[in-house]
């Protein structure tokens, strides 16, 4: 009897974490040919008016990418060095020749993240926080796109709450807290987790991970 709670919980956990292997099979041919070992993460470009978003987001990138088995260049150092070289405009860096950029750092691939949305909207007593990102990885040898992904994460406060006065109060508190300091970071981290999940939207494991060359199945 008590076990009946387990099934919905397990499904909920699996779906929340985005572990389901859905969607069409992606071709990893270019990835496998390029066989990158090291990834240069350049500062994100942003279409959002949130001035701090690129730097905040940058702090979430190195850990999940390195954990996939790749050497990730020191992101803060790279950002400062680019700035010292007069390349503080992230859009300019994103438009620069990826082959030249990679050769400057000795990188096998470069990861460009564009922040499409990073905002909070308030409607009456509820607020919705949205983070939307585009990820593009280009190879240093060919300049080809090796992988790309898009993620949009939203969090709504006050939605699905209980009705009546208690619900209204809960929503008001929720909105006030979020309005004072909308916390985008859990959404950003979740977006990375989903974008990098493999199997899933992500890319195969790199040479520093045990799954390297074992996670693509036979014949690849």
């Amino acid at each position: 009897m008590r076990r009946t709670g387990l099934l919905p919980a397990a499904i909920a956990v699996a779906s929340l974490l985005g572990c389901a292997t859905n969607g069409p099979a992606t071709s990893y041919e270019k990835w496998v040919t390029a066989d990158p070992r090291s990834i240069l993460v350049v500062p994100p470009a942003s279409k959002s008016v949130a001035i701090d978003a690129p730097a905040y987001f940058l702090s979430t990138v190195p850990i999940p990418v390195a954990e996939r088995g790749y050497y990730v260049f020191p992101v803060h150092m790279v950002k400062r060095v680019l700035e010292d070289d007069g390349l503080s405009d992230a859009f300019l860096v994103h438009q620069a020749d990826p082959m030249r950029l990679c050769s400057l750092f000795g990188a096998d691939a470069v990861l460009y993240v564009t922040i499409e949305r990073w905002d909070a909207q308030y409607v009456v007593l509820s607020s919705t926080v949205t983070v939307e990102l585009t990820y593009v990885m280009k190879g240093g040898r060919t300049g080809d796109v090796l992988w790309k992904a898009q993620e949009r994460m939203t969090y709504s406060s006050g939605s699905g709450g209980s009705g009546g006065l208690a619900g209204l109060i809960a929503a008001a508190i929720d909105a006030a807290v979020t309005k004072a300091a909308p916390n985008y970071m859990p959404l950003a981290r979740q977006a990375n987790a989903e974008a990098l999940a493999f199997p899933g939207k992500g890319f195969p494991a790199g040479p520093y991970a045990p799954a390297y060359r074992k996670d693509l199945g036979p014949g690849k």
Partner: protein
Amino acid sequence: MRPHLRNAALAALAAAAVSGCATPSTHYAWGDYDDALYSLYKDPTPAQHQKYVASLKAIILASEQSGRKIPPGIYAEYGYALFEEGNAVDAVAYYRKEMEAWPASQVFMEKMIGVAQRRPRPGPPDGPPPKGPATAVEKATGS
């Protein structure tokens, strides 16, 4: 009916576990690296910079003591923090450590060693770094 339900639940759990998403344990010991970097960008003060540098140092000590491989980039970031403080000699030592631990960093590290050796920054010995990341964040966002 009951056994089917249980099997389905186990299958769902197994699927989550196999794809490594259930409890994402990390390969490297990152300490509070991402939080410290986030805090530095959020509050770019000398105090926060010190905390960030301390966090890098803690990761280095923990990795060296445990014998676990140091996460990529940490030696380099620490070396660069020393360089910004005007300590070019120790910066070079940490760039070399990065290169030893991670040969993929060689091209970049050799360049940075060259930079450190050519123009060591005469910063104050224990003062704040000469350029605060505050302006860096503003510059990076192109505003």
